[in-house]
């Protein structure tokens, strides 16, 4: 039952990610990307990670993609304006092949499968997903967390300076 569900979701995910690159209209590509994010979120739910799923929808589908759609609409990108040069196709193909090779290699090594460490599924269900993430984020990973917040602050200041340059 669960594997059938997984297969359906995975099929939709693959199909919509193919549509992202093949759609002629940039808005339709963006919508397909949103669909892919939804499928990813569904997969997170089946992995007992509801917080990840909701964050995926809220941040990627809800915020970042809205910005992308916004930019596409503002710039009003025409369908014909997109021309693909042979160099770009070659580079994209090379990167794609490299990623495929990498994935197959990692899958073949087999050491990445299976859970390691003290956190198992029963504990995640018992204590709660968010509680565990929150505790780890503010105790063990406090320094990376603070560094990220400073980076974000710098980005905000940069954005304000760029926007207010003329005033």
């Amino acid at each position: 039952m669960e594997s059938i569900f997984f297969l359906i979701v995975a099929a939709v995910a693959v199909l919509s990610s193919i549509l992202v690159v093949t759609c002629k209209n940039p808005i339709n590509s963006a919508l397909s990307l949103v669909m892919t994010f939804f499928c990813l979120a569904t997969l997170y739910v089946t992995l007992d990670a509801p917080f990840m799923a909701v964050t995926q929808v809220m941040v990627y589908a809800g915020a970042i993609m809205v910005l992308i759609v916004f930019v596409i609409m503002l710039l009003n990108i025409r369908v014909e304006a997109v021309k693909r040069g042979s160099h770009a196709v070659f580079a994209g193909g090379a990167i794609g092949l490299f990623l495929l090779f990498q994935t197959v290699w990692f899958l073949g090594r087999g050491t990445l499968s299976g859970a390691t460490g003290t956190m198992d599924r029963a504990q995640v269900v018992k204590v709660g997903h968010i509680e565990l993430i929150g505790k780890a984020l503010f105790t063990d990973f406090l320094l990376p967390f603070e560094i990220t917040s400073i980076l974000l602050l710098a980005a905000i200041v940069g954005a304000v300076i760029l926007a207010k340059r003329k005033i």
Partner: protein
Amino acid sequence: METLILGLPVAYYIAMVAKVLVAFVFVLLTVAYATYAERKIIGHMQVRLGPMRTGWHGLLQPIADGVKLFFKEEIIPSEASKFAFLVAPLVALIPAFISFAVIPFGAPVSIGGYTVPMQIAAYYDQAGQQIFDINVGVLYILAMAGLGVYGIVLAGWSSNSKYSLLGGLRSAAQMVSYELAAGLAIVSVFMLSESLSLHKIVADQAGGIWNWYAFKQPLACVIFFICSIAEINRTPFDLPEAETELVSGFCTEYSSMKYAMFFMAEYANMVTVCAVTTTLFLGGWHGPFLPGWMWFIAKVYALIFLCMWIRATYPRYRYDQLMRLGWKVFLPLTLLNVVATGIVATLVK
């Protein structure tokens, strides 16, 4: 031995379907009669009668409206991008309805030995004797609210009309800015309840009106409600469809049932927002004497009335005023509220 599907009894699935139907019908009926109530209430507030001709005091008006819209001609502009144009009304409507999946709308009931919690995405664990629901319920609602913007943006862009595009752009900017303040206003509720599960948040507000988060977090409550009104584009924040400047904004080019779907989405959003506010701040379904679901409906309807009252009272904001209110007033206030809540909660403990 009873049959189990994915480790849960069959009755669980029957209850689930029943709950989905009940909630869906409730929202649909409320949406239909909210349109009537809005015209009637605003009419009386402006010393008019409102609809009077169809049925007794116009009671059949929503049905007449529905039939009329159903039989209108479907017009798709020739330069519109078809797919997005057709999908946009659906994209606007669906998030408004599925937010209801996590809202608890009554006390748990026992049917034939099974305890059924009155919340769609929740089940009662017979062994553990407790109710489990999605433990990220509030974030789920925020995520769905963020998706509502797609419908309007797509409608605005795909119509290939300047008015629609302007309406869509305004709406996108408005929703993104107010979502932030609404999210931060809810953070102070999390800090008090120490949980993101709506079941737990409602349970914390049981036992008397003074336990409501509206009294512990009055600022957060007011800001959340105002931001929600802004997010669902209702007056005084209905700039995306400002008739005086944009004809009717993002839905200018829509007709027939597709227009009706935008209309339904607007009212369904209003019902959802009022239900969320009830759950987070007004004690959910808790109340004396009457059964839980009656209290829930009463509180939701009171808030819907408040929305209509606001619409009848306030003029529309200007766009720069709207942005200033969101970014320079609400955002700092909610941040201050979070800091203050943190300090007070630490001191009290």
